[in-house]
């Protein structure tokens, strides 16, 4: 495809002597500026705060304390407890989303009446506001008059009554909300699997499980891994659902960070915790991406 390398001599840009490079930069510059102001600068600024004793509420200058914040956080059993709860939440909710989402995609990967409508309806949960979802699931889980207990015959079972139950209940809500995302990516992968492979497998009398293991899964794996990466990153940062549903009794690391930064105003320590979380998420994502590249190479 021919790339435009010269300007129309009659254009105003040409009249002002703007090169293609200048025009390209002019278009990109606002976005770069936005990224620098709202992403890069806060990243670097907060990194600086993470090495200081500083409270935004106290109008005192930040005092450099080196790695003390990191040391105190990493030796605080409470913080490790938050990470443990977050890990449990990630495993439960992401695991559930992958199973339910992929299962739904397998079911939808065929022609049937009103397929479009059904697919759209199934995608509705992920279009809702997380705060709204949290609030109405909190009502659904109510032990005295919530429909969940009524439908499942659980009497007055307290879904949000203690941290363990609340963790499971919140994870279930997350699964309900984000399985459609996994379903969507899986469906894209499934629809890209060449039909002749299934036909060849059918001719060779391959069973459903063999076909699934040897044809479907390997070819859909890259997209499943992408879904896994995105959902793991999101679940690790989970704040809205645990906060709204259990008012912080499911104390994920994001909730601890919120309390530290915006209620305790312990800006220095909160910045350090934020960086610890960032490093953990980066490490996990790196592992996933390496595995994804291996899968793509096969």
């Amino acid at each position, binding site marked *: 495809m021919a790339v435009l390398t010269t300007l129309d001599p009659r254009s105003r840009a040409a009249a002002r002597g703007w090169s293609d490079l200048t025009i390209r930069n002019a278009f990109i510059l606002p976005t770069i500026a936005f990224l620098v102001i709202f992403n890069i600068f806060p990243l670097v600024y907060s990194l600086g705060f993470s090495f200081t004793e500083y409270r935004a509420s*106290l109008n005192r200058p930040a005092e450099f304390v080196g790695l003390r914040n990191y040391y105190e956080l990493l030796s605080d059993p409470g913080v490790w407890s938050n990470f443990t709860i977050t890990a449990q939440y990630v495993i439960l909710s992401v695991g559930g989303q992958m199973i339910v989402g992929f299962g739904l995609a397998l079911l939808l990967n065929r022609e049937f009446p009103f397929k479009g409508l059904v697919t759209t309806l199934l995608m509705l949960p992920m279009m809702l506001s997380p705060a709204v979802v949290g609030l109405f699931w909190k009502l659904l889980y109510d032990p005295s008059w919530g429909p969940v207990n009524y439908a499942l015959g659980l009497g007055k079972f307290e879904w949000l009554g203690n941290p363990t139950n609340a963790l499971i209940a919140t994870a279930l809500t997350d699964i309900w909300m984000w399985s459609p995302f996994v379903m969507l990516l899986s469906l894209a992968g499934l629809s890209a699997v060449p039909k002749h492979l299934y036909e060849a497998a059918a001719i060779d009398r391959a069973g459903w499980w063999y076909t699934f293991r040897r044809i479907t899964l390997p070819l859909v794996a890259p997209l499943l891994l992408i879904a896994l990466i995105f959902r793991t990153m999101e679940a690790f940062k989970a704040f809205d659902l645990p906060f709204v549903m259990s008012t912080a009794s499911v104390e994920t690391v994001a909730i601890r960070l919120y309390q530290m930064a915006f209620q305790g105003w312990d800006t220095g320590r909160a910045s350090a915790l934020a960086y610890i979380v960032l490093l953990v998420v980066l490490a996990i994502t790196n592992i996933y991406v390496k595995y994804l590249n291996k899968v793509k190479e096969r």
Partner: protein
Amino acid sequence: MRKKLTGILAGIGFTLAGGTSAFSQELTIFWAEWDPANYLQELVNDYTAETGVTVTVETTPWGDFQTKTFAELNAKGDAYDLVVGDSQWLGAASTGGHYVDLSKFITDNGVDKSFVPATLQYYSLYEGKYWSVPLEGDANGWAYRKDWFENPEEMAAFKAKYGYDLGVPKNYKELIDIAEFFTRPDKNMYGVALYTQTAYDAMAMGVEQTIFTWGGDLGDYANKKVEGILNSAQNVEALEAYRKLYTFTPPNWTQAFFAENNQAFTEGLVAMNMNYFAFFPALANEASNPHAKNTGYFANPPGPNGNQHAALGGQGISVISYSKNQEEAMKFLQWFIRDDVQKKWAELGGYTCSAAVLGSDEFLNATPYNRAFADSMKIVKDFWAVPVFADLLFQMNDRLHPYITTGQGTAKEALDALAKEWEATLSKS
């Protein structure tokens, strides 16, 4: 074209210049979203009528109030001219330079003589200076179902089981007995609704009230010492008593604050409701409480050693240092402390801190809960007001909530761990 543009720009300039003087005739007060804020908005309309200055009371839910206020103060924002802040904020807000020193105002206008001393001590005073004018006096109290208590069958059954007459509890043992007596899950009846929410200070207020009532303390506020005080034997007993009371709450009562407690009461779930007096007007109103005629009120009962305390609630109104309308804000405060305004404030439902109004027969008889409120204001005690109060609150929530709501660990373990954390936090501050 150029002339037209100049004309339009000049017009805009004159409009803005002319309008500038109107902008300074507005005051914004920031408070939490609850009924007293609505009463205040009604009250300040009188100020508008007298002076022409528009006063708006902006609100936000309690769970967000501290976060939003300090976000604005830390940014040195001028969105608000006055804030009706919690007493615990005095340390952080004064140390941070966010509040205007009102010491001269208080003494020059005789507020230190006309307002109840306890309210000035807890709502206004920090390190020898006054930082607010007490606006809403409040304390933690109890509402109860008079019809349940006065039912002859219930009374006979209670006497047979506990050996004394059923009535307003005279001490904490009776409170626990009555809560146990009325807990009948098969009939969807429970003894008490308690504070357990950990988003801010709800659970801490409920627990501290019990600790104070046992004769205990949260620490030596003056010297910031905690070890041996917070985890004392009587505090351990007090915490065990709160845990015992929790076992008589409705199911899923792990994150309850004023709204949930009032709802449990109006729905006929509980015999007794722990709540701040500021929330009792809703219980006295038949439109919002079908049991209003059968609702009685009492102050927090004494503990086993005769100590009697109520957790302090309420707030003072402070002038924000970054406000561009400080002069007008001071004039507003001068209007607010007038006796006639305090009287109207009380009539509307606000809890005045004016000694004259609070002690008048008119006030005491105005509502079924005012006597209990007046009694409670004499026995109030507060949480830490140091700059790191929020850290102390969240550490308390983290340590005590699992024990109270699930029985995890023991009261001693929870308080020992909390004492250690508080010592570390206070020593760093």
